């Protein structure tokens, strides 16, 4: 299908983008990589009057290290392809590279962006749960300047984030996860399918024990969630299959998974337990 008509602007700077969004009000929408938005426009599920294309703002692309904190600073318009191949991401946030490799397919990853994917906040999207597990932060630019929102406050509801209509996500800050084992376990029925459930696991091992674990759940509610009960049970646990399986039994606690064509809530809860066990074992290196 053909999208409904809209106006199109392509600002050169973040300030200009924010101003244009502010003037456009609720009828203006940000165009990042377009790999979710353009299909939505084509299906006429959205009717923005103005698209503000962030595709030509150089400072929104690329990965650098913050000298003060050592955190990675990823420009919101960095494509999935560039995230996967970035040496800093691979060295210090391997979970993000690994999960991004499971997003869609190579052509979509050439256009789709990390910031676009996070701002779209689809519960079945892989990267929100990853940022939650990594304790990432989002930096938003708006008419009143910049503010930093922790990942746990960024995802508000189904397709809704803490971003205001006139705010642009400009940076994603990711603390280094050096020395942490990681794994993203995704379950979908077909190649390039959305996650029916996904589990992002980070595990810090000390000798034979799990000192600390962080687990992000994809598609177990209207926002990504942390499996807090399982995380608590894993702290200090032996890195052996029986202990991990026992902790993973609590992975669906506190979640509210949806019913859709792919799965019932009960089946999703089952997947969360199984995939959490697999992801933690892989992250702990005890597969």
């Amino acid at each position: 299908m053909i999208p409904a008509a809209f106006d199109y602007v392509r600002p050169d700077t973040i300030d200009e983008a924010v101003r244009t969004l502010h003037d456009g009000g609720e009828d203006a929408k940000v165009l990042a990589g377009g790999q979710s938005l353009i299909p939505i426009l084509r299906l006429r599920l959205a009717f923005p009057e103005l698209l503000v294309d962030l595709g030509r703002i150089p400072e929104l692309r690329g990965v650098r290290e913050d000298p003060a904190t050592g955190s990675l600073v990823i420009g919101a318009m960095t494509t999935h392809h560039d995230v996967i191949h970035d040496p800093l991401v691979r060295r210090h946030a391997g979970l993000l590279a690994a999960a991004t490799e499971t997003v869609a397919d190579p052509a979509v990853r050439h256009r789709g962006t990390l910031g676009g994917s996070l701002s779209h906040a689809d519960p079945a999207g892989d990267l929100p749960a990853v940022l939650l597990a990594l304790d990432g932060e989002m930096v938003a630019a708006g008419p009143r300047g910049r503010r930093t929102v922790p990942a746990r406050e960024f995802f508000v509801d189904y397709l809704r984030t803490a971003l205001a209509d006139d705010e642009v996500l400009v940076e994603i800050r990711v603390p280094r996860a050096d020395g942490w084992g990681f794994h993203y376990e995704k379950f979908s029925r077909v190649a390039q399918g959305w996650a029916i459930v996904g589990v992002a696991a980070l595990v810090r091992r000390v000798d034979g024990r799990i000192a600390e674990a962080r687990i992000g759940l994809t598609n177990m509610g209207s926002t990504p969630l942390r499996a807090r009960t399982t995380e608590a049970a894993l702290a200090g646990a032996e890195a052996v299959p029986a202990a991990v399986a026992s902790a993973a039994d609590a992975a669906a606690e506190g979640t509210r998974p949806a019913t859709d064509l792919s799965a019932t809530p009960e089946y999703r809860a089952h997947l969360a337990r199984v995939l959490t066990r697999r992801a933690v074992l892989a992250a702990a290196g005890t597969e």
Partner: protein
Amino acid sequence: MTRFSTTVDGTRYEDEVEPRLLLVHYLRDHLGLTGTPVGCDTGNCGACTVELDGDSVKSCSVLAVQADGGEVTTVQGLATDGEWTALQTAFHEQHALQCGYCTPGMIMAARDLLKENPDPTPEEIRRGLEGNLCRCTGYQNIVRAVLAAAAEERRREAPAPRSADTGRPDTRPAPAPATAGQEART
């Protein structure tokens, strides 16, 4: 209407289009380059894959105006003076198509894959073509064609071995790879 200019298969175009015009419709309806088909129209099937500024993209999920100042290559821009590329030849020789609808996208996606990985395994080819659906060949011959093209391209890149009796470069086609194609065709 928005003014934009783009280079497609080596020819530069200046145009005024509605911003909502998709790149695939620009190629087909404005430029008459119907070698790039519209498949699923949802971003899934990959039939409309083209190269934009060096990367494979699904042209149904890109606005024409986003290609402003950019360079687009379609399947129609691959051959030089009517001579097919190794990939095109391999798709023909290995029977990597039946209806042919997915073929332009398959070739453009495979081309992108071989740029990053000139010597892929069958598994890597299947992963690289994950975003391209074929509903008739069952992928077997497509994988075989990409393997054959990769071998042929590596052969062309390598210094040409000279045939002992003629002293001319060896221009025999690369042997068909033995790794794929032994399984039953579906």
